């Protein structure tokens, strides 16, 4: 064990690449979140390799296509109820079987996946926007403000997000917007850290110093130099938040606080599946559970991270 390993991992996680060491005076505060000892690149057995990533990307693409296309192509109304055809196992007519109300699970799962993905992507995007704004502000203002903000961010990080989610969702039940907001408001801290440390690193680089000496304001610097360079990393950060947000939506809906039960989503499908568990309709829970796991595993595999939970 040596501190060099530790440092490398730290910066790898925080920045996604090995940056130049920041100037000592402006050294970013060590982030509690960034102390993630993740399997390093090139590790022979712990990290998904290229083949795995391609596989993950393919499966993800297929899932997205399924979620987007099936509700368009199949005109079967996922809301139409017929109890006479309820709880039928997978068959050529219904590849994923039917639920107890006789609705086709192939089209209903697609609709559910779509709702869950939309909620998750919106939540993740919101978190990244808030985080970027907060991180950039801290880095720009700097000094004591920055220091205090980052301590505050650390403290906020220690709040159990899902519990906050439960509280907020129970106050605003059945609201998709409430779920998206909860995810956004509780998950921006990692992005804030990332953005802040990247900007601080950038500022120490020659071309930025040159820009400063030419009279660019801090805001202009962030806009023209910082954000474009950060784009890729922000996309990764948002991607990593998506499985997380899917969990939040499905957990809240499953325990009855999220989306209303007639509205297909991964959470409500799982809830309905659980009702049918004892009567032997395994497919009604296996399908949504499988979709949920596939989405999160593939996103995690693609973005090379153990699906980090808050």
């Amino acid at each position, binding site marked *: 064990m040596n501190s060099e390993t530790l440092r490398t991992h730290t910066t790898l996680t925080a920045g996604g690449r090995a940056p130049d060491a920041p100037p000592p005076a402006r050294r970013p505060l060590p982030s509690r979140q960034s102390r993630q000892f993740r399997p390093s690149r090139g590790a022979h057995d712990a990290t998904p390799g290229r083949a795995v990533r391609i596989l993950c990307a393919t499966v993800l693409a297929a899932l997205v296509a399924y979620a987007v296309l099936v509700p368009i192509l199949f005109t079967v*109304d996922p*809301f*139409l*109820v*017929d*109890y*006479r055809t*309820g709880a039928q196992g997978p068959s050529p007519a219904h590849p994923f079987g039917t639920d*107890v*109300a006789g609705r086709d699970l192939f089209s209903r799962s697609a609709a559910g996946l779509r709702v869950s993905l939309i909620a998750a992507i919106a939540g993740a995007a919101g978190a990244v926007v808030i985080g970027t704004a907060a991180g950039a502000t801290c880095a720009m203002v700097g000094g004591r403000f920055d220091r205090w903000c980052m301590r505050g961010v650390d403290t906020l990080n220690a709040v159990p997000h899902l519990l906050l989610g439960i509280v907020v969702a129970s106050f605003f*039940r*059945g609201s998709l917007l409430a779920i998206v907001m909860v995810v956004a408001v509780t998950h921006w801290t990692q992005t804030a850290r990332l953005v802040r440390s990247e900007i601080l690193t950038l500022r120490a680089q020659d071309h930025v110093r040159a820009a400063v000496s030419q009279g660019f304001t801090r805001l202009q610097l962030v806009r023209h130099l910082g954000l474009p360079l950060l784009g890729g990393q922000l996309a990764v950060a948002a991607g990593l938040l998506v499985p997380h947000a899917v969990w939040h939506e499905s957990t809240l809906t499953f325990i*009855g606080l999220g*989306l*209303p*039960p*007639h*509205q297909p989503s991964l959470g409500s499908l799982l809830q309905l599946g*659980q*009702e049918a*568990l*004892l*009567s032997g309709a395994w497919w009604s829970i296996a399908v949504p559970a499988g979709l949920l796991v596939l989405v999160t595993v593939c996103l995690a595999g693609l973005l090379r991270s153990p699906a980090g939970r808050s």
Partner: protein
Amino acid sequence: MRTVPHRARRRRTSSSVLALAVAVALTSCSTGGTATTAESGAGLRLAESTEYASLHPLDHPLGITTKFYDGLVNVGENGALEPGLAAQMPTPDEDLTTWTVQLRQDVTFSDGSNFTADDVLAAYDAVRDPAMGSWMAADYAMVDAVTALGEHTVEFKLSHSYAGLPARLTLGIPASEALGDSVLHSSLAAEPVGTGPYVLEDWRRGESMALSSRDDWWAGDPEVERIDIAFVPDENARAQRLRSGEFDGAQLSPRLAAALDGVNDLELVTNPSGDFRGISLPQSLPFFQDPQVRTAVNLATDRQAMIDGILQGHGRPLATPMTPAQGDSYEPSARFDHDPARAAELLDGAGWTLTVDGVREKDGRQFSFALMYFAEDTLRRDLAQAFASDLSELGIRVELEGVDRSQAAASMEDKAFVLGGGDLPYDADTQVYRQVSSDFADYDPDDPYSNPSGYADEQVDRLLAESREEADPQIRAGLYRELQTRLVQNPPMVSLMALEHTYVAQGLDRWDGLAPVVEPHEHGVAWGPWWNVESWTRP
């Protein structure tokens, strides 16, 4: 903040000790344990789907509290009312405004004190007292005064004639000194003091409760000496634990109950109920102002398919809020047969014609409305879906909304709603009055569930009023049958079905004395085959 009763303070300190000493508690208890009465055969182990918020009889009537409390009048076999703490049924004067009740003289509370007229006065004063905060206060608004005519005689003075009073006298009577100043802060919420057959032995919050029988109950010693009730919200877990023999019974949804019938000595037990479900048709929506349209919607609803598909046959189709549980007052010929063709004709006749996109229109307005259901209620969810599906085949678009109670109340005026009723089915008046009387036709956000359709019909109002003043039971029943005929001609809503509550039980043949009963909206292990568990005997 209100003052905390001394009981609560004591319990708080004792439970703080528990918090610190859980490890000690876990290790010091013996692992063997003595054979409980449940194992020796004199007890029952039941699973309840939700924990009780309160055991206060003014906060939680007709449920588990009937094991701790008796009313002046109790619910008996087949839902007939019978004297409880009253020596005989209450007797009215000629115009039904003064009711006299003779009380039993041999009754003691579980704290050893004697039951007298003062306890009755205290209970009925408390339930009407706004400061007590009982949700039933308004149900006793017609009671002007309750007075004692002696230590064991009570008189109820009413502000208007009311034939349905006996059903309202099922309220459990607690010992007057334990009443407390409100249902929120009363010790009765957790520590019942009643005249009933059982006392609360133990309550493990969030987990289980144990009842043990009294040896000085006025109606004799119950032979079922102990009832253990576990709170198991997850229905699959409840079913599974039943199947493994862990419980002697539980309430289950019809689907699961049917699946367990006959498995490992388990049997399906059903009771009829006055518990009905319906769909309000708010008349703030222009299309529902037309009785023809309301009739068409009723005809398009396939009630039997819902009963077969969702309730596994355990329900009775209804045309009005009156159910077979009301006996002579029920009119069997008042019914809506499933007839989508006739429904379509009626809609065509009313000017609602089909367009190319499959949705009916009139004067450029689409026939489309929102239908709310309580999101956590799986039965109402299923009914809402089935109803929406039936109407969509007729060319009416129904947007479903799973809502919580606050949202439902706020939107009741202009959105349809899957409503439930039958909280007190032991009198026709309490079953139907609030549902269809024009007293409640104006939308009130504080009272959204009374007449949620905003329905008003002069003939209906007249029949409701006349039957309240009619002393002769035969004539009164005739008035209610007439009411149902009128309600079918001019339907206020879509009444769907009266539920049969479904339970799964084992070992019932070890006991004598089981009897059918009519259940109210409330259900759970205080009902089912166990509703009269206190009078079961060994064969």
